């Protein structure tokens, strides 16, 4: 007698297909919502390319070494250029210093060849100092992803420090701004208390500190929502 319908097989098949669909659900739907769906701050931001900018929402052409496969970058920040004014002014002063020495006649006792050598060395070191300071500014970035916050610091020539904290570990976010320049250009510090290994993160001199604090709070809320939905499932 030919089998038209086998209840046992049908049940097993249905169970298998249900398991398959549950397993594949996070992949097919992306599991995490798009940042525009839950963040008021990011909703109005357009994707940006890194053109030596200090405020890069939804970066297109940026990544970092410890980035996970499905981790999406929401915001990349550098310190506001107004915070770099010290080394810029110092570099300008260093540029004019040799002319001052000539005017005063400070090194007149030196023969010409030493004078020339001094000039060369002085400007080489000034260029080196400027390049080093620029590199420090350019590569010291603060990254906010949909999973964590990352602070990348290059403290000296060959020392690097990468600290990260998961959004679920963030306990408190404080934004502060002080000074005339900070008020004019809207930059300041954001301090983040975490329950992780590194108890405090500091993003100093970043643009729009209040907006960034609001964004991190939105990410925390989203993380909590995901946790609750995960429990319901």
């Amino acid at each position, binding site marked *: 007698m030919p089998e038209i319908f086998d209840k046992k097989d049908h049940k097993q098949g249905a169970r298998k297909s249900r398991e398959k669909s549950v397993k594949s659900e996070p992949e097919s739907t992306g599991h995490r919502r798009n940042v525009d769906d839950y963040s008021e701050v990011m909703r109005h931001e357009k994707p940006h*390319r*890194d053109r*030596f900018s200090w405020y890069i929402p939804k970066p297109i*052409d*940026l*990544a*970092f*070494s410890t980035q996970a496969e499905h981790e999406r970058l929401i915001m990349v920040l550098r310190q506001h250029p107004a915070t770099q004014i010290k080394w810029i002014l110092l570099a300008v002063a260093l540029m004019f210093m040799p002319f001052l020495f000539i005017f005063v006649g400070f090194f*007149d*006792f*030196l*023969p*010409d*060849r*030493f004078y*020339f*050598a*001094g000039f*060369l*060395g002085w400007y*080489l*070191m000034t*260029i*080196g100092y400027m*390049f*080093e300071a620029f*590199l420090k500014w*350019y*590569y010291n*970035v603060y990254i906010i992803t949909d999973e964590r916050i990352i602070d*990348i610091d*290059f403290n000296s*020539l*060959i020392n*690097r420090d*990468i600290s990260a904290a998961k959004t679920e570990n963030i306990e408190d976010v404080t934004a502060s701004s002080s000074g005339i320049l900070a008020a004019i250009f809207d930059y300041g510090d954001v301090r983040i208390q975490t329950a992780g290994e590194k108890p405090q993160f500091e993003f100093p001199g970043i643009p729009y500190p209040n907006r960034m604090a609001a964004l991190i709070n939105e990410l925390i809320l989203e993380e909590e929502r995901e946790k609750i939905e995960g429990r319901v499932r």
Partner: protein
Amino acid sequence: MINLFQMIFNTESRFTLMESPDSIFSGVLRVLFILGSLMYLIFAGLVIRQVSLMGETVKVPSTGLMKLISLVHFAIAVVVFLIYIMIL
């Protein structure tokens, strides 16, 4: 003879007692300049390594440009080092 030639050669420049080849101060200054430029050469080499490390950590599109600048900086440091050896 060579020292005499150097003194004649330098008649256009400012002549001081320091120009004397026997001057200790002149010799010390020469060594300091060359040592300083050698140390700077090492620093310029470290900057190349640093840019490479930074580029690996934060993948930005301008890393190529930064590497080029660091290489040019190193090349200038080499040229300055050679100039110091030649003229001092």
